[in-house]
Each structure stands twice: as C-alpha cells, then as structure tokens.
C-alpha cells in the first residue's frame, strides 16, 4: 500500500512540476510582454504615434441595468461627459423592481415614445421606450421584461442606431477619453470586429468628469487585493493574447463590437452566465468558420472604472458566476480544443483557460489534499515543501507588483507611500490566502448552477465617487 501511495505521490509530483513550470512560464512571459508593451505604448504616445481625435466612428453605448437605482444616474452622467462626438446612450432596464426607470426619467427628463424596434436578435419584449434629446447625445431607455443581462444587451443591439456598439455595466464609469481610445483599433485595422478595454477597480478613486482626480488604494483590504489581481490579469494575459489575436474574453464591463458581425453570429446567448466570454469565443468561431478575416483586439489605454465587491460574500458570488460562465463557454465551444483550424486560439488561449482557469481550482485543491496525504504517511520533506511554497508566494507576489507598478507608472497615477506599502503587503496575502479561498469558491461553483442560469449577479452597490 505504501509503495502504491509512494508511486501515486511521485506521479502527482511530476504532474505538479510540469503544471507549475507551464503556469509560471506563462505568467512570466505575459507580464514581461505586457510591461514592455505598456512602456512602448507610453513612448508611442509621447512621440505622437497615435490617431488624432477627429475620426469619429459612430458608437451606441449600451447600459444593461437591473435594480441599479443607486448608480444608474451617475453612470449616465459620466457617459455624457465623454470626449467624443458621435455616440448615443441606450439604457436597457431589464425588468427592475426598484426605481431604476423612474430615476432615469426624472434625471434626464425622458419622455415615453412609441418606438418600433427592429428585432434582429431574439429578446424579451419591450414594455416602454423613453427618449430624451435635451442632452449632448440622444439618450434612450428601453424598459423590458426580465430576461437577464445577455437578453438586455440583445435588446440594446436591436435598438442601436450605429454600426458599432459598446457594452458596459451599469455600475461602471468610462474614463473621459475611453471611447476615443477604444475605437482606435477599428481605424487602425479594418478587420477588427471587437475591442476589449481595460477594467480597473474604482473603489478608492475620485472621478471628476470622467477624469481620475485622486487615486488611492481602497481603504478595505479585499478591494485592495482585487486591484492587484485585476492589474495582473489585464496586464498579463490579455496583452500577450492580443499579440496573436488570441483573446477569447472581452470583459462585459467594457467592450466594443461591430454590430453587423455580432448580429450575424446570433448576438449574446441568454442561456449562459458568462455572456461576455461566450460572445468573444462565438466571434472567433463565426469568423473562422465563415472564412472572414478578423481581429479581436485589446487596448490598454481605454479604461473603464468599475466597482469591485467589498464584501467576501459578494466576491464569492461574483467569482462563482464567472466560473460558471467560463465552464459554459468552454463546454459550448469545445470543438475549438486541439483544432488546427483555430491555430493559437486553440492551442494557447483555449488550453490556457482550460488548464489554468477552469481546472485550476480542482487542481489546486487536489494539490492541497495530496500534500495532506503525503504528510499523513510521512512521505513529505516539510522544509522543502515550505521552501517551495515560499518561492511560489514570492514569485507570484513579484509578478503582481511588477504588473501593478508598470500600470501605475505608465498611466501617470501618483501613489502615496501608504498605498505602496499596502500593495507590497497585500500582494503576498492575495497570493497566499485569497487565491485559495477563490479556488474553493470556484471549485464548488458548478454545484447546482443550472438553477441560477437566468439571474443577474447582485452585489451591494456603493455610490461611485463622481463629481
């Protein structure tokens, strides 16, 4: 029996070494590529290697909302402050039971209108449509039967007048120049069908007219750790994947799409929880299957500020949703796996998400359990285990800090010394504690997921610090 356990543990050890080498190499490569890319972008901007502001691509900004009476007015006001000329705002109230519609009607003097909406993608029926022309750009509010976020976005696409649409969350704020920056790839390359922007936590930031006037790390520890986590994931993988058109996720909080291609591909899938990832993968599949040349881009300097959960319960709920969404997308498009037709999207992006995102919680918890088993049968070198864990923590913390500083310096944010101390201290806590809690949450996410598939993820909203 002991021999068998020894053999089993040997196999596990070999597996984990390969797994760790793969993961650390990927992280290393992505953070170095990401950092150098940010510095190159800063240099390019200094030397005016950018398209000017005059090439306006018409964009419909879609804001799906469900029970967002606390934040929706601030969100729409921030959209009116964008440095862009040719856009419209469409808020889709997905059957809110609070005063979301009333808040918007009062704040923006919206009037009910009988607007025919061309239903090019299936979605729930509209109940009321309101419009206002008194502002810088037209604002439309579509109140519809509840059908989930994806369904609300489909309604927004149907109501959109312009050839490009931008989706965002109702609790997010776009930086004043974000629209101008996110359309640049479209002008740079006519093949671009979708562009993902950078999402940053706004907890702790003070935003005035879409400009960050004061940036502090959030007061609470949990959002602080998420700041580090967001920096690492956005800086790291997305920039690297962008190099080979391999991004298979565009955050639902901030993404620009070519409407005609999205409609041709069937729009958002309202039966999945991760509608943002599902759409990005669907676009890859649609374009490749139909032989359409395409690019899905990611831009670092188009920024959307979003609220991250401040309570552990909310964070767990959010991550559970994300994991279920990931699972559904990966399963739905499993045909991509090891499919030469998809090239790097299959062999790099898909495998990365499969091994290091979808399976990682199971692998990590399995690792902890086998460590306990080895400990129980006295087959573990405890000092080596502690050393190895120490190396892992320091290495991951270093990567987080590298991403954090690269981001801070390249977007001209000034940090306070206390923020630096927080970043240094919490990157260790994030890697050694939060990560394992999230691993457990993600591992248990799939239990009973079918029951939750049409719901909106609710987290406690705070009023965003907008002036």
């Amino acid at each position: 029996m002991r021999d068998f356990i020894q053999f089993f543990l040997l196999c596990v050890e070999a597996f984990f070494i390969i797994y760790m080498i793969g993961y650390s190499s990927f992280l290393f490569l992505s953070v170095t590529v990401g950092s150098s890319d940010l510095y190159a972008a800063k240099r390019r901007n200094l030397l005016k290697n950018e398209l000017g502001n005059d090439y306006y691509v018409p964009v419909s900004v879609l804001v799906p909302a469900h029970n967002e009476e606390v934040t929706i007015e601030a969100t729409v006001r921030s959209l009116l402050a964008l440095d862009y000329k040719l856009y419209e705002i469409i808020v889709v109230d997905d059957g809110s039971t609070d005063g979301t519609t009333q808040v918007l009607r009062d704040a923006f003097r919206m009037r009910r209108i009988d607007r025919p909406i061309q239903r090019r993608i299936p979605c729930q029926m509209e109940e009321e449509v309101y419009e206002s022309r008194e502002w810088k750009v037209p604002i439309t509010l579509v109140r519809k039967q509840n059908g989930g976020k994806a369904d609300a976005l489909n309604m927004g696409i149907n109501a959109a007048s312009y050839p490009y649409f931008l989706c965002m969350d109702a609790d997010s704020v776009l930086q004043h120049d974000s629209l101008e920056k996110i359309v640049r790839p479209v002008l740079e390359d006519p093949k671009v069908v979708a562009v993902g922007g950078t999402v940053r936590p706004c907890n702790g930031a003070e935003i005035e007219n879409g400009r960050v006037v004061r940036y502090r790390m959030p007061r609470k520890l949990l959002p602080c750790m998420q700041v580090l986590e967001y920096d690492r994931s956005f800086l790291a993988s997305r920039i690297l994947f962008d190099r080979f058109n391999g991004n298979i996720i565009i955050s639902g909080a901030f993404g620009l799409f070519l409407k005609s291609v999205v409609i041709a591909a069937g729009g958002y899938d309202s039966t999945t929880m991760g509608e943002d990832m599902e759409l990005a993968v669907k676009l890859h599949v649609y374009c490749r299957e139909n032989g359409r040349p395409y690019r899905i881009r990611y831009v670092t300097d188009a920024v959307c500020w979003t609220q991250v959960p401040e309570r552990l319960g909310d964070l767990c709920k959010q991550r559970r949703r994300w994991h279920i969404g990931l699972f559904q997308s990966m399963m739905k498009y499993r045909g991509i796996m090891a499919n030469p037709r998809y090239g790097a999207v299959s062999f790099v992006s898909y495998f990365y998400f499969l091994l290091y995102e979808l399976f990682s919680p199971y692998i990590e918890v399995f690792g902890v359990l086998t460590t306990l088993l080895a400990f129980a049968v006295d087959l573990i070198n405890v000092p080596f285990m502690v050393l190895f864990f120490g190396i892992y923590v320091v290495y991951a913390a270093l990567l987080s800090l590298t991403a954090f500083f690269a981001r801070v310096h390249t977007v001209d944010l000034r940090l306070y010394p206390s923020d630096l101390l927080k970043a240094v201290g919490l990157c260790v806590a994030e890697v050694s504690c939060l990560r394992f809690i999230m691993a457990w949450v993600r591992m248990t996410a799939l239990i009973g997921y079918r029951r939750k598939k049409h719901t909106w993820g609710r987290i406690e909203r705070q009023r965003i610090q907008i002036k």
Partner: protein
Amino acid sequence: MGAEVLLYGYGLVCLSMLAFNLLYSLHLRSDDRRRRRRTEGLRRRVDAQLERLRETRVGAPPPVQVSHLTWTSRCLARVNYLLAFDRLLDEQDQSDSTFQEYIRQLQPVLLYLATVYLRREETQAAYYCHFLARHQLQRHMEMDQIQQVVLSFLRRDSLYCKVNALKALCSFGSPDILADALQELSREESAQLHEKVVTEALLTYTGDRAALIELLWARFDRFSLRLQRAVLDYIRFCSGAWGRPMAQILRDPARNKELRFSAIRYFGRYPDEGARQLLLDFVRDRDPLRWEYAAISASALARYPGQEVVDALLRAMHSPNWYVRYNASTSLEAHGLTYEEMLEVLAGDDRYAREMLSYRLESRRLEEQAAAAAAERQKGVAVGV
C-alpha cells in the same frame, strides 16, 4: 530541482523588472525638468539667430549662421531635442516675419533631418512626419525635395508613420505628390488605411483643391477600393462640381456597391436632375438584396422636389425593410409633409409604416421640445447676465 532553478531565474528577472519600474518612475519625475532644460537651451540659440535677423532687417536678410545650422542638424537628429524644438515652435509667434525667415533658412536642416529620420525606427520616423505636418511648413518654403523624401515614409510598415506622412504631405505637398501618395498607399492590400483617416487627412489640404480633385479623378482607377471610397467622400465634402464622373460611377453596375453608395450620397448632398431618375429607380426597387440602394436613395431624395418623388417615398414607407421606411419618413418630412398628413395618407394601410411615421412624429416633437428648453435656458442665462 530544475523547476526550482527555473523559478529562481524567473524571479530574478521579475526583480529586475521591479527595479526597472522604480528607476523608471524616478526618471519620469525628472523628465519634465530635462525637457524644459532642453527647450531653454534651444531657445537661447534660436533667439540669438532671430535677434541677428532682426538687427539687419533693412535690405536682404543675412543668412542664419552656418554654425547654427550645423549645430541644429546635429542636435535635432536626437528625438528628444526634436520634441523640445517642437515645443519651442509652439511658443513662437508663427506670423512674425523674422521667425518665418528663420524657418525658411532652416529648410536644408529639415531636409537633412528627413533623410536621417527615414532610417530611424518607426516611432521616431512617424514623429518626424508629425512634426512636419504640425508646423505647416508650406507657408515658409518650397518643399519639393522634402516631398519626395516624405513620400518614402509611406513605405514604412508603421501605420502611424503612413498617417503622419500623409498628413505632412497634405500640409505642404503638391496635388501631384498627393496623388502619388495615394497610389503608394494603394500598393499594399494588407496595410490599407481606414478611409476615414485618408478623407480627414485630405480635408486638411490647404492647396488648390480643384486641381487636386482633378488629378485624383484622373488616377482614380489606380487607387485601391478603400482609397477610392476615401476620395469620393473627400470630393463629397469639398465640392458639388463633379456630378458627371459621379453619375458614371452611379450608373455603372460593375462598380463596387460601396462606391455607388458614395455616389448616391453625393447626389443627396448636391441635387442633380440627371441623377433623379436613377435614385427613384433605386427607391422603387423591391429586391430585398438591394435594400441598401433603396435606403440610401430614400435619404438622398430629401432634396429632390416633385410629386413623383413624394409618391415614391410614400410607397417606400411600405417597404419590408426598417431602414428604407425610416429614411423615407425622414425625407418625406423634408418635403414639407407633416406626419399627421402622412399618417392620414397611410391610415389603416400598413402597421409598420404607421409605427415608423408615428415614431418620427414623436421624435420630432421631442427635438422641438429640447430646442425650446435649450432656448429657454439660454434666455435665463442672458437675463441672469
């Protein structure tokens, strides 16, 4: 043990990156100071030359010192100094004749720098073109030689280099060189500029636009489709004197549909009796595959008077296509029909047409209310003042 070593190696590189970040942060803090210092250094030297030119304004101006030109050539070959010089030029009074004379005499330096930056990496090359475009050097000099060099910048891979070089040529280039530039840009199918970018650049051209358009027509078929669209859009924004060649494009079914759409838009902006029948034919066409022609023509017919047009637009209100109905309703409004009248004409006839008309009616009311509210606010402000 191998994994451990690899991790140590990676960690070391990350540590170096972290150190680089910190050093870079310190470097950034002093960057502004350094740039100011460079600008001041340049200003002292340029001011001395301007003073020299001013002192002897009577008669022929003396040349700028050769030593200054030599020093400037050497100095501005470094991109950080070119940035500082860019900043310095921004601060100068561009209309001052002495300053213009100074810039005129700097022409050989700029030509030399063009050959230097042409060999530099893409970002620096693009910046040099940006520099040339920004300071509108056409006002100061005949730039024949430099035009040819800037044309070579279009062959670089960088998109920004191409865009900035095109802008520079629009700033001081001749119609011939611009037509050459578009031909050059048409060569690489894979690296085509967006038509909006090209149109916007062409719109900044300050020379003889009629001569430019004539040349662009003459070489039209040598441009790529994307650039042909850009040229047609440019012509539409510039002048209504090109109805004949536009009509040829509109009539030619072998032409790409995007070009024909551009021609329809042109005739929407500049009504032409010769195009009327063709536009009416497009609007009357019920082939669902040709709905785009119908929709754009419905919009273009807004400026064509006559009962025949109104009848065609009213018929278009029954089109199964949403866009055709929407554009037709807007054009009917431009023809002076109120939506109430149109609703009467179409009453009970077609639900989709009725819905669209009633939506347009309500939209119009909203727009009028918004305009009234804005006027009210304006009045309030005036009274307050």
